[in-house]
């Protein structure tokens, strides 16, 4: 079941020059069940020439406080509009959308995030932990400042980082990190979200080592609910909508 609800923005916290976290509270309705990897289609209020909704992952869920969080990278008009919203105002969401990440068959997992792709991995880590699986993170960014919300991820498990300029952690991309440079990886399941080129390299790595790999795509979307057919990706069964058949796919199923 999908819902359309107005949430109250209870906080809008700037993380760095381009990331913000919105905390949204359910008022007058109950949060439905959501799963990690699912997303919301968010209506940007009051922004001229932002016409369509913007898809954003569920970054975190707190059923007790009836709150969800969105982690947003300001890349264009829509996300900047969201970044400038005052606390107390309302935000309209269609959610929860898409197919979630699924539980692994065994316990050794690595969650790899790049850029705003880290967003769904916090909720995923919490979910895994609740199911007795210890999440381990590998997070890549351009530089130290680009690494956001690390404390939150660290609360859930070990966090390894890479930065392109080497200012923190291993210098380079996530695939240059020691955990991925061994021929005998100590994890069996990869969950990843980030730029396509990064995920493609990771998917190849997973293939080579016989690991399962769930990737979450960020295709351009108009409706988010399977009605417009704009968000397709090539799969073994032809074009499939990322918004309904994904955003999470088994990397082996994709032909990207």
């Amino acid at each position, binding site marked *: 079941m999908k819902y359309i609800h107005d949430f109250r923005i209870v906080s809008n916290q700037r993380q760095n020059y381009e990331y913000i976290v919105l905390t949204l509270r359910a008022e007058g309705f109950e949060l439905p069940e959501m799963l990690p990897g699912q997303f919301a289609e968010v209506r940007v209020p009051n922004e001229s020439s932002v016409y369509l909704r913007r898809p954003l992952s569920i970054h975190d869920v707190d059923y007790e406080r009836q709150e969800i969080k969105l982690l947003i990278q300001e890349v264009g008009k829509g996300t900047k509009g969201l970044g400038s919203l005052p606390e107390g105002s309302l935000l309209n969401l269609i959610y929860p959308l898409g197919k979630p990440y699924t539980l692994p068959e065994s316990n050794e997992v690595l969650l790899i995030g790049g850029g705003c792709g880290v967003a769904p991995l916090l909720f995923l880590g919490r979910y895994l932990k609740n199911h007795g699986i210890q999440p381990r993170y590998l997070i890549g960014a351009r530089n130290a400042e680009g690494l956001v919300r690390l404390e939150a991820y660290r609360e859930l498990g070990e966090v390894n980082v890479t930065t392109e300029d080497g200012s923190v952690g291993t210098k380079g991309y996530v695939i240059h990190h020691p955990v991925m440079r061994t021929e005998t990886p100590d994890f069996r399941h990869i969950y990843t979200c980030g730029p396509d080129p990064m995920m493609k390299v990771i998917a190849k790595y997973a293939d080579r080592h016989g690991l399962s790999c769930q990737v979450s795509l960020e295709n351009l979307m108009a409706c988010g*609910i399977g009605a417009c057919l704009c*968000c397709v990706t090539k799969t073994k069964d032809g074009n499939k909508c990322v918004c309904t058949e994904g955003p999470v796919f088994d990397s082996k199923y994709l032909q990207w």
Partner: protein
Amino acid sequence: MVDLSVEIGSLKLKNPVLTASGTYGYGREYEDFVNIDDLGGIVVKGTTLKPREGNDYPRMAETPMGMLNAVGLQNVGVDRFISEIYPKIRKYNTSILVNVSGSTIDDYVETASKINDLDDIPGIELNISCPNVKEGGMAFGVSCASAEAVTTAVRKVYSKHLMVKLSPNVTDIAEIARSVESGGADSLSLINTLLGMAIDAKTRRPVLSTITGGLSGPAVKPVALRMVWQVACAVKVPVVGMGGISNATDAIEFMLAGATAIQIGTANFVDPQVTVKVIEGVKNYLEENNIASIRELIGALRCD
């Protein structure tokens, strides 16, 4: 109680609000948000004789108060529509029209005749105006002769309500409308998307895989309204108007311009409940203005 029902020729609708093809899937995509039975009707996805994979990604670009799409008629084909989808949607208590597309006249004819046998499909919308497929579609809609020819051919095999959807990418839409009317159309719907283009200045590439695509949304409303008015003045058959309709006022404007019913497309993406809000808003407008039946609005524009 105000009367919202309208008749598009033989097609009786409980209200004038339909959904536009390609923007509402098969209706089921919106079931969580809307009681589909409340709608005047739904026009399902563009359906072709053979299944189509559609165009490559990327297929969309946002534009000022609108969007470009280049879906390219991805659909399961008429046979799987009949065997898999029709059984699930025929139960809706609303008028379901199938949008029929093709690359050749034979395609159109064969697809239409298969749909003719479906009891719960009271009509088709012949799409002679899709700008997103190379091999045809729009080509039929931009010349009077071919527009009339495809209409005449389908008319021969299709006995129920035949709506023909016109392309706005023409010099004189009234002329095309008259040809399609002569070809035997029961009604005309318009507009399909305007041919447009988007470029990414950063990568210096077109945004869409097909370079050009179809423009829809509020941005096109003034052009759509003008064409509906021109066509309604030019033909005797009923006209179904669309293009950027996002609220009840928009819908009323199209009806004043001469539309007997309207379709809502892109606005469904922004607000999946827009259709029922428009129905509600139109009802309020009639009540506030003491108008007993919505039919009094059709073509009621005062130009004196």
